[in-house]
């Protein structure tokens, strides 16, 4: 167990280093740069700028310096936000994105699991049909459309919640909802598929034959096997959250990692984009790792297999 865990951590570190190396090479080999503006700089000014940012050193030296910085969590100065370190921007943005993603994940589980169980039940055919149809529908709509509809409804029509901004809890409610809904739909479909299977298994059938009350049956025999695919889904779910947050943070003007990343990508702030990419890789990798560990805890067969 510990050995496997250590192996996974090492491979996570290697993939972070690889992503960093490829991104670094791509950034350094581009011809255009942040100093190419409408007005041409005089050669002296350009040289001074490049010296200041260490862009005139040989490439291997630059790379080693970048790796040294990576180990200290230092990605150098942002190319657009003058006099600001990328790490400062990341430190400001990360908590916002974590709050957004974490809240959305909890909300998605909280909606998705009961809806999935409902969709699998034979006792409420109408509810099951509605739950399954809604989940399928939600998966076919881009999340920025969901965001638009939700804003139109709750902000413009009803006037309950602010359409954008950041600072208070109520600013986060709509983004949480928009980010969570597609994920909840996916979780519901997963839970439904596995629960339908579990309900037909010999173990559950004999439990029913013993005359167990539905609540006990659900708790002891159905829930645990039905939730393993949800755990296995946590890794991909984190990836989906990252992707979704790129859009949702834009729509709701939240100053999180996603907003910074998209702005950096469009404004050629490569050091910032590189920093966000590395942070995203670390986030996704650690979430996948945690999900795998949880799964091994819940279902010992997983451990035995690998």
């Amino acid at each position, binding site marked *: 167990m510990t050995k496997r865990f250590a192996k996974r951590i090492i491979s996570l570190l290697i993939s972070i280093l690889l992503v960093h190396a490829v991104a670094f090479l*791509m950034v350094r080999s581009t011809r255009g740069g942040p100093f190419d503006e409408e007005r041409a700089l005089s050669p002296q000014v350009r040289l001074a700028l490049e010296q200041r940012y260490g862009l005139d050193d040989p490439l291997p030296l630059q790379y080693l310096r970048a790796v040294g910085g990576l180990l200290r969590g230092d990605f150098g100065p942002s190319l657009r936000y003058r006099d600001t370190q990328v790490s400062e921007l990341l430190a400001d943005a990360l908590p916002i994105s974590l709050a957004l993603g974490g809240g959305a994940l909890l909300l998605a589980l909280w909606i998705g699991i009961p809806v999935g169980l409902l969709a699998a039940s034979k006792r409420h055919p109408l509810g099951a049909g509605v739950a399954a149809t809604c989940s399928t529908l939600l998966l076919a*709509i881009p999340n920025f459309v969901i965001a638009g509809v939700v804003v*139109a409804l709750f902000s413009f029509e009803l006037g309950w919640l602010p359409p954008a901004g950041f600072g208070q809890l109520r600013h986060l409610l709509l983004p949480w909802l928009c980010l969570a809904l597609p994920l909840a739909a996916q979780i519901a479909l997963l839970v439904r598929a596995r629960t339908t299977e579990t309900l037909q298994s010999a173990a559950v059938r004999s439990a029913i034959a013993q005359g167990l009350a539905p609540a006990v049956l659900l708790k002891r025999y159905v829930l645990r096997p039905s939730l393993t695919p949800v755990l296995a889904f946590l*890794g991909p779910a984190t990836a989906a959250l990252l992707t979704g947050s790129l*859009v949702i943070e834009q729509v709701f003007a939240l100053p999180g990692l996603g907003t910074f990343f998209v702005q950096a990508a469009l404004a050629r702030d490569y050091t910032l984009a590189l920093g*966000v*990419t590395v942070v995203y890789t670390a986030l*996704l990798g650690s979430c996948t790792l945690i999900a795998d560990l949880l799964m091994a805890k819940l279902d010992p067969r997983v451990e035995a297999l690998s």
Partner: protein
Amino acid sequence: MKLQWLTRAAWIFLALLALLSLVAPWLPIADYRAMDPDARLQAPQWTSAPMLGTDAQGRDMLARLLWGARISLFVGLFGTLVAMLVGVPYGALAGYRGGRWDRTMMRLADAMESIPMVVFVLFLMSILQEYRAELAQVGFGRLQLFLVAIGLLFWLPTARVARAEALRIRQLPYVMAARSAGMRGWPLLRRHILPNMMPALQVMLLLTLPRVILMEAFLSFLGLGVEPPAVSWGGLASDGLAAMNPLVGSAWLMLLPSGALALTLLALQRVGASAKD
């Protein structure tokens, strides 16, 4: 069983849509690029002239939707094909070779999975913007770049399916017979293994298509999709979202393209699910 009529309806819808978008240039509809400052933001009339209304520049929405369908479907189809062109040989080779090759190739795939590919691809595309002029010279516009990006994003699931299929087929008696008769390598793969993967790959194609179309919408929203004057459904929906405000109430600008998108994706899902059973 009871969903059979729905599957049939989905097929008919998709066929109609494909046909309409194919013949869009010859249909008697307005030019999708023609702006008309006197006819801005007209609500849908349903039966008379701007049937589906006009957008903030007075362009006809019906024409824009049909031309958008062309791009969305084209990107979906070719993006999926690119993903399969990368994924199928990779997975088939890993599954067919087995052993150490399989382990190494699949470990690489696992490692790729732990990288946020969407972010990485966005990063790549933003950097490639620097080389737009050179790329355009060799016939590589935003659309082609986009197809490459899709290939990078979606080849992994395809590779996994192809590998599982190759592993299964490899053990079938007729493949063993061919092997014992001395058939090896590429001829064996091409004649016996690849053709028998086709059913599974067709299902994979149908399942990947809606995801690619959705990804195009996502990138268009972020401003990295197709470039104007070309239109796609995702771009239209995001324009609609931008034009939406409580005073004008021009909700149709967003609802029409996203409705079309959702209907198409649902139809594809239905068709894919029925093919899987």
